[in-house]
């Protein structure tokens, strides 16, 4: 458990949105399910903090990228289930391309950074 904690990476704000939208592409999901899915899919590295998850969900809902419904779970419990909207699908595409750009950029930074330190 301690080990897992050390490996955790603080999620950047924009990145969490991306992960939520991406995860919802596979189908509607409730908050707990989302956090589990992100954790499992990242091989236990990305641990989503509830203090980030719920605000993010409510914000994405407000931005109309996701929508929420109350449903009954298999255990007959009322749960709030989120699903991707059409706008959310579009958003997901642009977030993904931004992410690609960012990771290129960061890769770029890491490379010539050495050169600069020599000057």
């Amino acid at each position, binding site marked *: 458990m301690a080990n897992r904690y050390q490996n955790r990476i603080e999620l*950047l*704000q*924009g*990145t969490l*949105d991306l992960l939520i939208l991406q995860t919802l592409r596979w189908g509607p999901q*409730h*908050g*707990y*399910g989302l956090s*589990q899915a992100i954790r499992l899919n990242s091989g236990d590295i990305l641990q989503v*903090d*509830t*203090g980030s998850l*719920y*605000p993010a*969900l*409510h*914000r994405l809902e*407000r931005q109309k990228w996701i929508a929420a419904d*109350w449903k009954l*779970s298999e*255990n007959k*419990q*009322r*749960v*709030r289930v989120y699903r991707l909207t059409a706008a959310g699908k579009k958003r997901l595409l642009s977030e993904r391309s931004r992410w690609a*750009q*960012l990771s*290129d*950029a*960061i890769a*770029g*930074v890491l490379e*010539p950074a050495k050169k*600069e330190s020599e000057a």
Partner: protein
Amino acid sequence: MRFPFWRSKRQKQLEQEIESHLQMAKRDRLDHGESEQQAARSARREFGNVALVEHVTRDQWGWVWIEELMQDLRYAARMMRRNLGVTLVAVVTLVSGIGANTAIFSLVDGVLLRPLPFRDANRLVAMNADYPKGAFVVMRDQSRTMDVIAIRDGSAFNLTGRDLPVRLTGAEVSASFFKIMGAQAAMGRTFQDGDDQPGKDDLVILSHSLWEHRFGSDPNVLGRTLLLEGVSRTVVGVMPTDFRFLSPKTELWVPLDLDPRQIGDYWGSSYMPILARLRPGITIDQAQGDLAELRPKILAAFAWRMPDNSYIKSRVIPLQEAIVGDVRTNLLVLLGAVGLLLLIACANVANLLLARATTRQKEMALRAALGASRWRIVRQLISESVLLSVCGGALGLVTAKYGLSILKSVLPADMPRLADVSVDTRVLVFTGLLSVLTGILFGLAPAVGASKVDLTKSLKTGDRSGTSGNTALSRLLVVGEVAVSVVLVIGAGLLVKSLWNLSNANPGFHAEYIVTARVTPNQSFCEMAGRCQTFYNDLLAGVRSLPEVKEAAGVNGLPLGGGFEVIPSDVEGFAIPAGAHVPMMMERVVTADYVRVMGIPLLKGRDLTEADTAPNAERVVLISKSTAERYWPGKDPIGQHLKPRWLDPWWTVVGVVGDVREDSMTRNLEEWLDGEIYTPYGPHAIAGRGPEGPPADLTLVVRTGRAPSQFAGDLQSVVSRLNGDVPVTQIETLHGWIADAISGPRSTASLFAVFAALALALGAIGVYGVISYSVAQRTREIGIRIAMGARREEVLYLIVGQGARLALVGVAAGLLGALALTQLMSSLLYGVGAADPATYIGVALLLVVVAIAASYVPARRAMRVDPVVALRYE
């Protein structure tokens, strides 16, 4: 924090959502074989602080923008503290811009915009021409659309019978004046219908300040009798403090004396403004139509035949417009000037922020990488600039408050409504809006520039040269700044030049060594034949015998706006052309030496003499040069005749004198006057009230080497020896009187000059800033140039040339702008065209020189660049 009720429902749902999360986590753990108690505990531990999660989630519910705004503002405040130098320069710049705008707006608001302090003030109108009393009565009795008021303001009343005689300023008003204006007395009553009938009109109403200061707020003042101008009047009321009409100087109101038997007064010499209130449902156009229908009735009622098209141009205008008059242009021009000044200030601060934005590019890239949207970054930067400008606005408001009291002392005291001007809620709102707009205006350029960050490039290379867009923008801003400065400095140049022309214009008389004093016996004092004449003869003799007095004379009003009488006249042999009105002659009633003492040139014929003032003397007048040219062109005016329309014997012209600036430094007479005559101070002079007879109120003009303060005591004792009830006021030099006459143009010119100087300084700072920044950016390049063998002077020229080029472009644009904009102020100019080449060339040179000087400092820095250091610079 209290939530609206719908929120508490949402709150419950949130609690439910979190509860379900905990339940599901617990179930998973139970499935993994944990005990009931352990599962619940670790699910809760993993979840974290429930209250905190609820809190941060709630924040997403719609008041996010407030939250983000606070975050932006906190951040902005931190940035401001960190860049204290930049912040200070920016705030000072903004304070001058916003402060100046707030002060001038307060003036514009108080004078032009705020409604007059009367009930339904927008229903009050005025005629744009003055009418005699008789015409007023026709309008009052026959108008179908308006309740009509006549008011003569600024009449002087001697209050005697108490300790020292005092001179009070009052207004003569028709009986329904207060009722129509909608004003109530604070004590007693206002005038009622019929109070202006002869014999029943010996009444007076006091202003609050007169009652307070002169009567010690005596609660028993009602019913007391005051001796005003030798007439005893009963006090019937005291007005409240906030009733000042027409001007704050008005200390008392008396009923207008409407006696049709006094033909000269009733139809001739008592032209006065006519006001009215539109009756319910009546538009100003309908009132206009009504006035047109009344016109022939008014003309028919005249005691003598008026030309058919008299008053054909009379119009009904809103009262506010009538009161403000030509002050409007002055104020709007000043408002325009401070507006331009604010633009320059904005451009300066924008440049400052642009330069800083460049150094913050990595920060912006990082924020973008962390998921901040472009809009979010723009908003962040705008919040910073708005915070900056709001600080500027707050301080500007303080500045404006002090500035306003300075303004009030600089502006001519007779400026309408000046007393009403103050910093109030409307001004606060204006300043608030102005600050925010300003912040957005100067924040936008840097924000858009910074948000266009190319993520990859900035982060990858830490490159500083990706700022060429910003540099172009900041140069554009400086060019704009220079251009606007040119416009302002040219405007100031033109105004100062016309002020110079005004101060040095020939007023038609010589003011050197002349001291003036107003001597004002009661008009009733003059009713006994010859009494006033004897009094003034004795007085002038007494004054002439004072030490260091060379000459002395008396006149019924000084040139440049002093009081005068108007005589609708018949001119012998002159047929009134179609469309013209009866010749209106301005009458200067003078003692024998007046023309000589004032140095008004006698062009033809003879001067007036003592003999002309005798009761049985032939009636003679002097006329002004342009009067002679107008009525007897190409003929000898000497021996020609004219007379008041309502009197019989002709007056003979015996001399022609030079034209005098009677109205103002820019024109001899008001437009509606056709000529000027000088009548000897004797029984045949027209005093305004009687059919014939000398005016009581004369201004002495005394040629003496002594200062007014030394002279005053002697003069007062001469007067007191002759008559203890006669006040002497307004003892000053004629030069002082002239200075007062151009105080309007002077205040406009000096305010404008201050704004232009500020603009010039800001423009210079702008050029300096941009060139310094460019030198800093080009250090490496300059280093290379020097390393390659460029001489240091060449570097100097390179940099200074850069500044000069910017300035030249700005100056060219500014000259074009000035050509267009100065047209708007052409009515304020005197003796100088709006496109005066000398001013334009001078200002263009000035701006180029200032720009070169401003770029010289950073250029020196560039010259001293050490190539070795410079090449390491990046």
